[in-house]
């Protein structure tokens, strides 16, 4: 196991925390000081993230940069961190989206509190992705609700209080099951082996062995974990908090919510639910695949009907995350690779779209598609960027969206042909809802308030361009991402095959990862 020379992951966790404390100490009358602290610490975290990306070894099996600390001895809770090919990109994505989110929020009121909450959110999200102890994972999983709640409630629009409360209660209700599930797993492990631990690796090894628990217990526990993660993703019947939260949140909140918070759910599937209960995962795969396909189609159809541009993008997230869950529960190397890729790609493209909608809102103080029109003529650069982000989101070849969704569909086709066939229609529907909205809002002749708008400025450009550039880069050259995630993904699939009575189909020829 590769261990870094210095505690890189702890540093990534503590940098935003230190920034938050520092920003808290800045005078309220000078929010610019707090903002500078925010930029500085989030960029520093990104720097640490990049160095993590560069020093990450793609051939090592298991976790890297592992650190182990005692935390609550009586309860056998540790603070263990580490990173593998699945969590790596989530951490880097988190580190990338926060400086962008902060930069995009330079004009939000009460900059001090905003910065503090953003940095606390960044800390808890990084904590989620690096934790290798179930309780410390849960701690950060729950903790992330608080700053997000305040960001939506304090800086949101419209029915923000309602949306924030709904977001908090929905996810917390899901977590209730997760919490009891975690305690139960640890207890059963203790009863069988006499050792109290919440260590993910130890528990995974034990729970996935055939003798550990009855199939029924395994399935119940799988469902307990699944409920929490399905709310977060969100999967079809549990998604109703998302449109409200996304729409009412401030721009930076939406970017982070779509870019990272939703991924906590899919990451939870990959890290906990599937490896810990592989037989149950194989058993319930058709159910989750079906829900994912419903999400893809339903999300796309509902998105097409939205009069509000931001709400439209919110619903499109339901569809995109459907592809992630589809690939994940295809339980093939290609499917999961595609899922991981889509997680990153969706963070980039939807982030860009939310930023652009935020800019439109700043200019027109509305998000209703019917209020816009002819924007292409009045603000050509912003419109051009919107078009590019839109095509990236649709999954036009050359953008990351295509690679991710194609790979996950390919992986699904291998194991679950008909689900893949139906889900493919989602790709077409994505073109329908986005192009239709684009046509209504951007083409034609500008009239009334749509004339003479200010085009994008340098600061706004600096927020969108990196995301689009990365999406384009990964669209043409996805190899760096696939290379780093494939060891972990292969190990995961091998683990499922070994522990469950299951064989993952392989493609006939090594044509996987079509984008290579």
């Amino acid at each position: 196991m590769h261990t870094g020379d210095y505690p890189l992951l702890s540093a990534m966790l503590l940098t935003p925390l230190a920034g938050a404390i520092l920003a808290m100490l800045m005078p309220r009358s000078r929010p610019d000081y707090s903002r500078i602290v925010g930029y500085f610490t989030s960029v520093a975290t990104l720097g640490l993230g990049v160095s993590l990306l560069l020093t990450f070894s793609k051939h090592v099996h298991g976790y890297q940069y592992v650190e182990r600390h005692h935390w609550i001895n009586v309860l056998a809770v540790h603070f263990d961190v580490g990173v593998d090919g699945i969590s790596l990109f989530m951490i880097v994505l988190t580190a990338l989206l926060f400086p962008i989110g902060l930069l995009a929020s330079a004009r939000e009121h009460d900059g001090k509190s905003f910065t503090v909450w953003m940095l606390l959110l960044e800390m808890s999200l990084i904590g989620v992705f690096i934790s290798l102890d179930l309780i410390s994972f849960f701690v950060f999983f729950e903790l992330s609700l608080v700053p997000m709640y305040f960001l939506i409630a304090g800086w949101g629009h419209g029915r923000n209080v309602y949306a924030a409360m709904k977001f908090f209660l929905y996810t917390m209700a899901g977590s209730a099951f997760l919490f009891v599930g975690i305690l139960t797993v640890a207890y059963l492990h203790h009863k069988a082996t006499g050792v109290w631990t919440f260590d993910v690796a130890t528990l995974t090894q034990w729970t996935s062995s055939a003798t550990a628990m009855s199939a029924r217990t395994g399935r119940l526990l799988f469902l307990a974990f699944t409920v929490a993660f399905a709310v977060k993703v969100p999967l079809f019947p549990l998604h109703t908090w998302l449109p409200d939260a996304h729409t009412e949140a401030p721009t930076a909140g939406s970017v982070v919510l779509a870019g990272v918070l939703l991924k906590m759910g899919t990451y939870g599937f990959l890290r906990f639910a599937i490896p810990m209960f592989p037989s149950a995962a194989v058993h319930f795969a058709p159910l989750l695949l079906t829900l994912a396909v419903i999400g893809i189609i339903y999300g796309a159809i509902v998105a097409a009907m939205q009069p509000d541009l931001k709400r439209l993008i919110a619903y499109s997230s339901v569809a995109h995350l459907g592809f992630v869950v589809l690939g994940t529960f295809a339980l093939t190397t290609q499917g999961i690779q595609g899922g991981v890729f889509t997680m990153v790609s969706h963070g980039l493209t939807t982030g860009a779209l939310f930023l652009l909608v935020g800019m439109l809102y700043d200019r027109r103080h509305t998000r209703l598609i019917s209020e816009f029109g002819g924007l292409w003529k009045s603000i050509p650069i912003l419109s051009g960027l919107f078009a590019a982000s839109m095509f990236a989101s649709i999954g036009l070849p050359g953008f990351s969206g295509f690679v991710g969704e194609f790979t996950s569909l390919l992986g699904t086709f291998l194991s679950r042909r008909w689900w893949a066939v139906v889900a493919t229609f989602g790709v077409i529907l994505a073109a329908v809802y986005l192009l239709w909205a684009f046509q209504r809002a951007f083409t034609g002749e500008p009239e009334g308030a749509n004339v003479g708008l200010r085009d994008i400025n340098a600061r706004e450009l600096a927020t969108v361009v990196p995301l689009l550039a990365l999406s384009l880069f990964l669209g043409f050259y996805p190899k760096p991402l696939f290379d780093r995630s494939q060891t972990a993904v292969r190990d995961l699939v091998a683990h499922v095959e070994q522990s469950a009575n299951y064989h993952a189909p392989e493609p006939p020829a090594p044509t996987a990862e079509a984008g290579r």
Partner: protein
Amino acid sequence: MTAWLAVAAPILPPIATPRVDWPTVAPVVAMFGAALAIVLLRALVRHSRRLVDTTSVVLAFAGMATAAGFLFYQWHLVRETGGYQTFAGAVAVDGLAVFVQAIVLGACALGVLLGLGYVRREALELPELLALLLLCTTGMMVMAQANDLVVVFVALEVFSIALYVLSAFDLRRAESQEAGLKYFVLGAFSSAIFLYGIALTYGATGTTSLTGIATFLAGNTLTHTGLLLAGFALLLVGLGFKVAAAPFHMWTPDVYEGAPTPITAFMSAATKAAAFGALLRIFAGSFQLYVSDWRPVVFGLAVASLVVGTVAAAVQTDVKRMLAYSSIGHAGFVLIGLQVANAGASGNRLPGTAAALFYLLVYAVMAIGAFGVVQVMTQRGDTHHALSDYRGLARTEPAIAGLLTLFLLAQTGVPLTGGFVAKLAVFRSAVDAGQYQLALIGMLAAVISAFVYLRLVITMYAPNSDAENAAAEGAEPAPRVRIDPGAGIALFLTAAAVLVLGVMPNWTLDIAHQATQLLAK
């Protein structure tokens, strides 16, 4: 006369009085002495009110400091030699007793700190408040040590009577009077029920000593358990009333709302700790053999408290009342710990007793903190604790709003606050005992309670509506909130404790764990 005595002596053997074990009662004596000294001082020194006030504050803190010192000494004694009994088995000195006494003493100190500003604002008698608080704490400390049902009852009465008076302490407020009377009438009922429970238990076992009861039940098989079980039930009702567990909670909202806020803070934390200490000692200790009989009842009480506490709190529009209902909900969480009190006692599992003790400590800190903020917010006459009075507080008083947010998040059970670790401990002990349903019900109750607390949080952070702004321009500005030094210290201490217990709970959890292993034999 002497001749008569000489004749009578052989017929009536002299009552064997137990040796007075001074170190054991030293904390209690110190508190009691301080209370008496304050009363005497007030009665004798009439010329300078200022002198009396200052001296009584000094006396009160001296008493508490002495008691704390002796508690430390007892803790070391217990750690080295294990728990022991004294006063002919009527008093137990063990980890449980010391832990609960420490909570009660801490609550008393914080209550005094909050009370200083309150008394000045309302122009009430400071020495009386201090003397009553100290007497009340004395009773609770005796209760924590009591190893005989009669001693439990005496302690219960001592602190209850002091609490009745404290609830009605604000003479000029009708609500306070009402709270005192209501608490007195219902409390007297519950005391009578408790006493009857003692009588029935005595009838069934022939002793009131808790150790004696355990020995008797272990050595004899009862052919008719009806009497004993009726005794259990009545004891449970009596103490359930004190801890504000549903369905014996009817008094709680009215009394918590009506009583002076510092008293509410003190009694929510300390009464719960003392009464749960007794519950743990009686049920998890003496009645352990009949666990299958009382466990379902406690299960029911726990679920009822969780449901009533959280659901009823959700519809309150008065912050004190809301916190009162949430206190019922927290009683439910501690009852989960009681329900599985000894289930995990073997090996390195976490016994429910330790979880319950830790929860009581964390609750004391969270509750005093939250009520402390309410105390700071209230205006002369103990008004201004409606939900609407907190609207927009974050803009005018960011520090106070931040503190209250911290305490409310802790009560929700958000990670990195003491509330999370406390819930983790309770649920872990429940799952240890195979009580998955109870853990799940508890978690879902926590979700509902999140709504309750967030509603208050959002009110503080909500901007004023335009109509209100317009109205506010015409009206005089709301009086600025002033934090007096006593309340400031209390809030700082509780906030720090909430965070420390959440981030570094090791040390305290260890102590709670040890405390349950060092029970008096």
